[in-house]
Structures are given as C-alpha cells and as structure tokens.
C-alpha cells in the first residue's frame, strides 16, 4: 500500500515538475530558439507547443522501449534519428491539415529536431526510466513548454496588436506597440519574464 502510494506521488511529482520547478523555458533555459521565434502570436505558439508535445511523447516512448538495447556511443545518434523521424511526421501532418500554420512556422518546425528539450529529456529521463514514467515526464515537460509559450505569446500579441485570437481586448485608445512583434520584443519580454520568475522563485525559497 505504502509502496503504491509512494509510486503515485512520484508520478505526481514528475507531472508537476515540468510546470514549475523544472519548467523547461523559465528554469532550465532549454529550447530558447522556438520560444523566441514563434511567440509573436498565440496561434503559432499553440501549434508549436502541440508539435513539441507530440514529438517529445513519441521519442520518449521509443527511447524508453529501447533503453536496454542502446550502445553508449551510438546513443545520441539513435536519439537524433528518432526525433528527426517524428518531426518529419509532425511536419507532414501540419502541412496536410493546417497549411496556414505550417507556412507561418516555416523552418521552426524542423528545428524541433535540435530543440534541446527533447534530446535532454531522452537522455535524462527516458533512457533510464520505464515507459510510464517517461510518458508522464514527456507530458509534463511538453505541457509546461506549451503553457509558457502561450503565456509569452499572449503578452506579445496583446501589446503588439491589442487583440488575442482576433478578439479586441484593449481599449480603442491603445496604440499598438509594433516593436513587440519584432525580434526586439521577443528578447526583452523573455528577459523581463525570467527576471519576474526569479523574483517569485526567490520569495518561495
């Protein structure tokens, strides 16, 4: 009984870790490139997040299944191959079902291959743990990443156009800050967000 309780709590912890304690963007500083590039609006950020969840889930499952067969020196090659395969599949799905988004995201979809989050989770979690833990870890990390992305995108979209999802949220007198949708806005918003997270985390500790 205690054993199973301990197990559940461990799963629960893994699940929550990705959202805050080990949030891939804010705490681990992983996967910065898509974080900055696709957060000009919420829609592409959400699409990107879903792609990352899909790839992370699939690659974690495969890596965790193969973990006992992996040769140490071929490990990274194997991870890369797995990730590249699922990214290609995700890209094909995007092109087929949401062509608009696929065009908007452009090269950032294939760039998921070199997103450090995925290879880091494959190395740190999936290659050591059984499948269930790996799946939970993938979900938690993926959701944490997506939520962060959408949050940043929300701020930037609101300030740069005054709208989110086509819904006007700002009063008419608001002058859109065009700079927020440009690279400048991305860097500065993320920098300030990280500062904010540091303050909050510092208070908790």
């Amino acid at each position, binding site marked *: 009984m205690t054993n199973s309780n301990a197990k559940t709590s461990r799963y629960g912890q893994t699940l929550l870790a990705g959202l805050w304690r080990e949030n891939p963007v804010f705490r681990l500083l992983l996967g*910065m*490139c898509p974080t900055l590039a696709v957060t000009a609006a919420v829609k592409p950020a959400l699409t990107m997040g879903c792609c990352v969840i899909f790839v992370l889930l699939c690659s974690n499952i495969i890596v965790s299944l193969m973990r006992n067969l992996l040769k140490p020196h071929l490990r990274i090659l194997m991870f*890369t191959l797995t990730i*590249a395969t699922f990214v290609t599949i995700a890209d094909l799905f995007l092109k087929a079902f949401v062509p608009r988004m696929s065009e908007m995201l452009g090269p950032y979809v294939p760039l998921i291959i*070199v*997103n*450090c989050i995925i290879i880091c989770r494959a190395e740190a979690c999936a290659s050591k743990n059984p499948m269930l833990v790996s799946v939970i870890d993938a979900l938690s990390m993926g959701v944490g990443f997506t939520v962060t992305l959408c949050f940043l995108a929300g701020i930037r979209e609101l300030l740069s156009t005054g709208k989110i999802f086509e819904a006007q949220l700002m009063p008419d007198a608001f002058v859109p800050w065009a700079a927020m949708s440009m*690279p400048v806005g991305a860097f500065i918003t993320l920098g300030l967000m*990280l500062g904010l997270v540091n303050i909050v985390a510092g208070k908790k500790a």
Partner: protein
Amino acid sequence: MDTLSILLMGFISIVVVNNLVFTKFLGICPYLGVSGRIDMAFGMGLAVTFVVTLSGTLTWLIDHLLLIGTSLEVTRYICFILVIAGAVQLVEMYLRKFFPSLYESFGIFLPLITTNCAILGLCLLISLEGINSLLEAVVLSFGAGIGFTMAICIMAGIRENLDLADVPDCLKGAPITLITAGLLAMAFMGFAGMIR
C-alpha cells in the same frame, strides 16, 4: 561581375541584415551559454563557422544531387541532421589528429555544435529560399558563420563589462543577457534596407 555582386550582397545580407541570432533567433542556446568570456566566444564562433560552411555546402549538394532527383524531399530533415552530426564528428577527428592544441581549446564545444540550431536552421533556409547555385550556398553558409561569430563576440564583450555593472539581483545572468540581446537586435534593425 554580376555574380560577384550577387554573392557580395548575399554575404552582407546574411552577416548583418538578416543576422541569424538577432532576426531569426537561431543559435540562442550557445549564445546564452558561452558568451561569458570573449576568447571562449571567439573559439565557439570559429568552430561554428567551420561546421556551418561544411554542412551548408554538403546539404546543398545532397539536396540537389540526391534528394530532388529522386523526389525524396520528405527525408530532408533526417538527411540534414545526419550530415551535420557527421560533419561535426569529422571536424572533431581531424582536429584531434592534426591540431591537438586547437582541439584541446575547443573542448566541450565541438560535440555541442550538433545541437546548435543555427546550423540546421541555415541548411533549411538555403533549401527553403531555393538557392540554386553551389557558390551562393557556400558563401551564404560562410556568412552565417561569420554573423554568428560577430554576434556572440559582441555579446561576450558586453557581458564582460556587465559583470562590473550594478544589475538588479533578479535580472542577473540570463535575463539581462536577453535584454541586452534585445537592445542589440534593435541596433541591428538599423541595417535593414541597406541591401537593395
């Protein structure tokens, strides 16, 4: 003359106007990681320049000679990443054999280059833009490397001075680096419109 001017424009455009770090957000991870000291940053920049030139050229060749001919474009991403991993491995072995001292100084950077998004990003950009001459692809990839080196060195110089500045506690480290990068990106926006 005509080709020369096209090449020159492409080069300047990728180095300053469309700098990979400041306008396309590529290669941010190492940019945040190793831009602490200027000599390390320069080493990383050189290593990246070398690998990006090599893999940009190789992927262009593979794309045009192999994949498009056999309409296997769907496997493009896998081929590209394998080429990059291979190129990095090759550079590592070559350096270890012939320039051991240089190899020592690059240290951990070399294997890390594989997961540098600037490299895969550039290969994808070349294939997306439909560059159809080998020379242009070579010049573009070399320019991308130079642009990356420049960005990372500027940043390292600023960060060395930033250590002496009074930065609020919560912004120390990555946050202030990102904000500085934002200001730099704004400065680089001034180059837009230079290339006609």
